[in-house]
């Protein structure tokens, strides 16, 4: 029987859940801003320059200035563009980017210092097939890119979106297989379970992270993750020197900002998922479980730094070379890795 009392007891948890959802949304927006600043500063360090330093103390308000500038720009649309799809494409990209993070856990259960009677998971939605959800939604974001390129009715955009679809086909298989080997090891599709499988240490020193049993899988995941987020050296869909700006050549103002936002949030999501799958999520020494999110943030930052570092160091691949690389190198490696993992689990009960 439906009990009012039961509902009453649920209310604090419900409010906490809503607050958490809004908080995650807000922090994702912020993370994009912080990433812009972080990327510009790191790039400046690598290139022996100063980077932004005029707006606010140490240039900290630069992302705010960028956003304000973009908001006041005129929204332009080519006359020959398809109005509906042209408007829809950035929304798909941004929405997919936000949605994918919903199932990513970023901390252990907490009662917020005893405020709640029942512990709350630091995660917007605990889905028991979280990995599949992320995989599905991440693939959706490519539709944003393809539609943007097609609806702009511009040649550079079209080439950019064609490259995006070619790229997606070549990396997603190995991306999925790299994930699969972790799933086999964890025996679960829920990210929370996968993270909890990585708690503890081996021989009192080595953390039980999947990174140490799946080094190859981790590398494949990272490489495919760069392709997934369209970052250099795999940034063909928007290769500035070749295609001007690729699929978002014709976009301006906030619709351009949406693509920009989507790119950075995708980076954060890919790094967060990598942290959960391979780096033990919020588990780490020295800190109590309830402060695990600090570890989580540190690990995500380390992976993001790696992405930024790669972008400003390496030349760009050619898109047919990525396809060769994806099919001939990455995919066989991922298959071998998965088979070896499966054999290991089956015979040695890893």
């Amino acid at each position, binding site marked *: 029987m439906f009990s009012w009392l039961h509902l009453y007891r649920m209310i604090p948890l419900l409010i906490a859940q809503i607050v958490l959802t809004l908080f995650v949304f807000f922090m994702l927006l912020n993370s994009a801003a912080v990433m812009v600043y972080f990327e510009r500063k790191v*790039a400046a360090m*690598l*290139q*022996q*320059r100063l980077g932004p330093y005029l707006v606010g103390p140490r240039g900290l308000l630069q992302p705010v200035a960028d956003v304000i500038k973009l908001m006041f720009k005129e929204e332009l649309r080519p006359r020959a563009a398809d109005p509906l799809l042209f408007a829809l494409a950035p929304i798909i990209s941004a929405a997919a980017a936000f949605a994918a993070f919903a199932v990513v856990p970023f901390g252990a259960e907490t009662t917020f210092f005893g405020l709640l009677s029942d512990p709350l998971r630091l995660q917007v939605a605990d889905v028991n097939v979280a990995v599949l959800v992320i995989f599905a939604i991440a693939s959706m974001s490519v539709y944003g890119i393809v539609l943007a390129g097609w609806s702009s009715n511009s*040649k*550079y955009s079209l*080439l950019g979106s*064609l*490259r995006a679809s070619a790229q997606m086909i070549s990396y997603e298989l190995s991306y999925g297989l790299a994930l699969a080997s972790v799933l086999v090891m964890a025996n679960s599709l829920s990210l929370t379970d996968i993270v909890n499988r990585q708690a503890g240490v081996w021989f009192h020193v080595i953390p039980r992270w999947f990174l140490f049993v799946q080094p190859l899988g981790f590398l494949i995941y990272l490489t495919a993750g760069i392709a997934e987020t369209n970052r*250099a*050296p795999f*940034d*063909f869909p928007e*290769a*500035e*020197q*070749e*295609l*001007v700006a690729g699929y978002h050549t014709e976009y301006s103002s906030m619709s351009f900002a949406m693509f920009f936002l989507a790119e950075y949030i995708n980076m954060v999501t890919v790094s967060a998922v990598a942290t959960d799958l391979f780096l033990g999520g919020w588990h780490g020494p020295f800190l109590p479980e309830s402060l695990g999110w600090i570890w989580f943030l540190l690990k995500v930052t380390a992976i993001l730094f790696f992405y930024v570092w790669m972008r*400003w*160091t*390496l*030349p*760009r*691949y*050619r*898109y*047919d*070379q990525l396809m060769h690389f994806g099919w001939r190198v990455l995919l066989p490696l991922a298959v071998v890795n998965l088979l070896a993992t499966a054999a290991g689990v089956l015979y040695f009960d890893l």
Partner: protein
Amino acid sequence: MFDTNELVLNMGPQHPSTHGVLRVVLRLDGEKVVDADVVIGYLHRGIEKLCENRNWTQIILLTDRMDYVAAATNNVGYCETVEKLMSLEVPRRARYVRTILCELQRIASHCLWIGTHAMDIGAMTVFLYAFRERELILDLFEEFCGARLTYNSMRIGGLPLDIPPGWDGKVLEFCKIMSSKIEEYEELLTHNRIWLERTKGIGVISGSEAVALGLSGPPLRGSGVPRDVRKDEPYAAYDEMEFEVPIGASGDTYDRYLVRIEEFRQALRIIRQATEGLPEGPIVGKVPRLIKPPAGETYHAIESPKGELGYFIVSDGKSTNPYRFRVRPPSFCNLQGLRRLVKGHLVADVVALIGSLDVVLGEVDR
């Protein structure tokens, strides 16, 4: 109605990597280039015609504006042509300083090339590293003649002024810095797997074909033809310098890259020799007050950073300006090879190939 198999892509004149205002009309099959039409003329200022209406000294300043990233080399080429026309003797010290300036300019120009070439292929950081060193050269030039880009740093018969005190020491110090920085560029690129895949086997051109197309400079030497005006028809003080002419083997983008990297080192070698052996003496030869070459015509070529830079000048012997002034710009002739090079490659390679030819549109259009 439309040919559905080909996409005509108009690349430039406003495009991030056409090095100025080059326009390339590409006919694409997918991303494969079927044909390319190179359109030039967006930077035409009529410099050759302009020169026919200026007196012989004023022209030096106009030559600055052709290859504006290697102005000193242009000055040297022009002054030597007029000196040849007038059979003027240039003092040894002036020839040595010219050699130093030419080689510094070569390094500055190659710095700009490696920066933009690497950026076209997506390696952004090299650009800032190379410009950091180019800045040092510009400082040296600023100290020598007061300008940082358009130097106007030569006079017919010699130099406008002697080198400032202590300048030669600074040049040697720069050589020391630069030789370690070349290693830095090489670390980032030479053995980089992506760089190799992007440049090896791209835009292969054989030696004979390169000669037939009239290529010169690193694009020609990359194909294995050891043609260098500095060695073959020495000018300035190159006959007294010891240096090697690097050549490539297969004539692809990677070889052209290696040739230029080696030219960095050879340029440093020449600068060191010339600075250390800088003779004393006057800086201007015996030049008449009014420069009025005798009637006649002459062609004189020098090795600019881009290739063979030649001046063909006709003097009627009566007026104080040339009767006909014609430049053989290396960028213009090298750009002719682009159509041949890009065929069958992808869009991404087109920008790599434009960068690999190292053209300056100011010189192409004049």
